[in-house]
């Protein structure tokens, strides 16, 4: 009897999990669907027929295209900087004992746990106090700041699993410090670095709150969308969202498959 009830409970849990997954995914379905909506009125809120028109006219709204490009530039720039300095910090924290390690760990934690709003507000305070104009550069600075901890933590997690005797062996065989790093350490921590890079890119291209404080007159993709909520989101936004979603999912799947192949 108890076993029967147990099995029924499991089945209910299974159904429940799917209900939650469908709930979480339903806004995605709506976004994709309304990128195909042949809307005639100004607002894109009711289904009026199928069309590919918005895919053909994807770049017709020049402000929106500029905003998307700004987002991509900032994401690329901030990812490159974050990966460079974050990987170095991850190596230092994962491999070495040094003075200030505790403070560094605390700062890394503080950067993750500071609410985005407070981070944005404090950066604006700095830029205002220092009379610094706000543009794509200040956005990039901010994005590096909030991505840095994530890259550091991801790389550090990978570094601590690394067997130090590998590097010692390379040194014993006459490799230089740089050679050892490039040919032994870097390939071994590469999955962590790549994961960190993807995280940094995703965080950057998605960010609205911090960016809204430090953007000046530069508009990014999320800022443009929020700005057009009142007047109605054009279907091109849905299409861009759909394409970003598709590319992201493809990269994630490719990554998972190649990880499985490597074993």
């Amino acid at each position, binding site marked *: 009897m*108890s076993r029967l009830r147990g099995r029924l*409970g*499991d089945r209910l*849990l299974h159904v429940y*999990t799917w209900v*939650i*997954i469908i709930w*979480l*995914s339903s*806004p*995605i379905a*709506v*976004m994709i669907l309304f990128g195909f909506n042949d809307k005639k009125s100004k607002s894109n*809120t*009711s289904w009026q027929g199928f069309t590919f028109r918005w895919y053909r006219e994807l770049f017709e709204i020049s402000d929106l295209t500029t905003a998307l490009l700004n987002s991509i530039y900032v994401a690329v720039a901030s990812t490159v900087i974050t990966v*460079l*300095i974050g990987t*170095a*910090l991850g*190596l*230092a924290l994962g491999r*070495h*004992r*040094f003075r*200030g390690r505790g403070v*560094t760990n605390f700062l*890394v*934690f503080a950067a993750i*746990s*500071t*609410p985005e*709003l*407070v*981070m944005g*507000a*404090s*950066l*604006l*305070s*700095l830029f205002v*106090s220092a009379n610094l104009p706000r543009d794509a550069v200040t956005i990039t600075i*901010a994005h*590096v*700041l909030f991505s*840095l901890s994530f890259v550091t933590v991801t790389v550090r997690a990978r570094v601590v699993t690394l067997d130090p005797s590998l590097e010692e062996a390379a040194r014993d065989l006459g490799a230089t410090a740089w050679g050892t790093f490039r040919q032994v350490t870097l390939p071994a921590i590469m999955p962590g670095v790549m994961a960190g890079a993807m995280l940094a890119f995703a965080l950057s291209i*998605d960010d*609205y*709150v911090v960016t*809204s*404080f430090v953007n000046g007159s530069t508009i990014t993709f*999320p800022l443009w*969308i*929020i700005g057009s*909520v009142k007047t109605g989101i054009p279907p091109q*936004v849905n299409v861009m*969202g759909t394409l*970003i*979603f598709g590319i992201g*999912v493809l990269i*994630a799947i490719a990554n998972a498959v190649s990880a499985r192949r490597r074993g």
Partner: protein
Amino acid sequence: MKRLTPYLLALPSWMWLAIFLVVPMAAMASVSLQTGNAIDGFAMTFSVSNYTDALSRYSTQLVRSLIYGGAATLAMLAIGYPVAYFIAFKAGSRKSMYLFLLLLPFFVSFVLRTISWGFLLADDGILFGTLKGWGLLPAGFHVLATGFAVIAGLTYNWLPFMILPIYVALERVDPRVVEAAQDLYASRIATFRRVVLPLSLPGVFAGVLMTFVPATADPVNAQVLGGTSNTMIGNIIQTTYLTNLQYPTASALSFTLMAVLLVGIFIYARALGTENVLEAAAR
């Protein structure tokens, strides 16, 4: 040279964190005590009244944010725990598929996701519009522009951040411990309450931390899903800073928000008996 290596590796990040995290906090602390306006400039006057003014003027929104954030966190916990439990114990070889499906929303921009969710909740949208058309709901029924819509949006947006840490904690539970409890004739409920639940608490702790802070401070959900009577502290800080250019008031508000959240986390950590907040969060 070898002894210098860690310092050289850490130096760029140290500089970044010092200049753009520590110094800005100090700048904000300083601005929060100044008086003046955006045109004539601000001067340091050590006016603590910025804090008392901001608090008395915006305490409603601050309290509302804490209630919305807290309600959403509780909802996430109640909704998410069973999902984490299912994936950890019952999903077998399909664990990664379920985790992937749970993470799908993160491939869509946060802002766009919130708007799409609001779209689903719209008065005459595909959900309520259809139900109204079938006569299942009264014509005046609406969810958008209510506190419920904001809480639902916060819950929707951060749910995976609650599920994942709980899943990680449950996944680490040794199945033999559960079997042992059952061998000793513990009922399913007793096994869960006395064995599984206590072992999953670190995950619950991390999940609450990862969701409560950002949900409470979030301005987007209230802006997109709420009405004029649902503004949260995040919206106030944004408009005070960016539209009204009242930097001192906005800085004071930001600090108050952070202090309230820190105190909240501390009390919460104490209540759960976790001695070291950092350690628990790092796990």
